[in-house]
């Protein structure tokens, strides 16, 4: 048997969650998008770049590709999706740390990307998005003409 199962609930956790949800609903970056039971924005995103492209990576375990939508418009990347909690008769939760529900994350990119050429890959719960920079935003090597 699992011991101390009653100790996982605390009225202060409940209050903390409520306050975070209220604060989060004013967050312009996520548009209030969140998953139940998740404090803060979801998913967390890492972004990096090289001369030709921006790359975004997010960890979204348990989200299947058919439950995922992505848009890259101008300099804005949107990741939408949902994860469903396990449900069933005779099923009791002793601990629920994994958020469930719908989420939307909107990230403003530093440069415009070529929306036609954006590619995404989902493997073992890791989403990787490759976004070639729009022609105007690419690093160009400038040669100095000699007089």
């Amino acid at each position, binding site marked *: *048997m*699992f*011991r101390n199962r009653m100790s996982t609930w605390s009225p202060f956790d409940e209050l903390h969650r409520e306050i975070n949800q209220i604060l989060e609903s004013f967050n312009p970056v996520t548009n209030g998008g969140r998953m139940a039971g998740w404090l803060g924005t979801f998913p967390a995103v890492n972004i990096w770049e090289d001369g030709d492209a921006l790359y975004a990576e997010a960890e979204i*375990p348990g989200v*299947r590709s058919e439950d995922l939508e992505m848009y890259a418009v101008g300099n804005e990347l949107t990741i939408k999706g949902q994860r469903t909690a396990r449900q069933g008769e005779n099923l009791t939760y002793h601990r629920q*740390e*994994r958020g469930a529900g719908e989420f939307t994350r909107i990230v403003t990119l530093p440069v415009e990307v070529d929306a036609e050429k954006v590619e995404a890959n989902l493997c073992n719960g890791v989403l990787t998005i490759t976004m070639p920079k729009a022609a105007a935003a690419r690093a160009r090597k400038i040669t100095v003409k000699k007089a």
Partner: protein
Amino acid sequence: MVTQMVRSKREGDLARVEHARDRRTYLPNVDILETPEEFLILADMPGVKPDSIEIEYEQGVLTIHGQADPRQDEAATNYLLREYGVGDFHRSFTIGQGIDDAKIEAHYSDGVMELHLPKAEKAKPRRITVKGD
């Protein structure tokens, strides 16, 4: 069940990450569920190689470990935003008696590990009928 404090993968908490064997290690978020037949643990372990997952059950302690190698060369990558770190996942649970350890089963898909811990026969709920006169 006793679990350690949850260590966030978020950047702000990186200082609390363990550096065992020069590898960053995080506590996975878990759901723990119970049905009449079993306990079910769902653990978020994105980016883990399925064949690297180790599950041990010894003297009432269940330990899960999954290896997640860096996906970029962190020193050479030009990050614009870093909200989480990448590293191994490790977590232990203390479980009292009542698990049939020979029948523990695990599956890994979409970055989630699903661990089935069947209850031992004697731990299953039994219906007790009251006999009337």
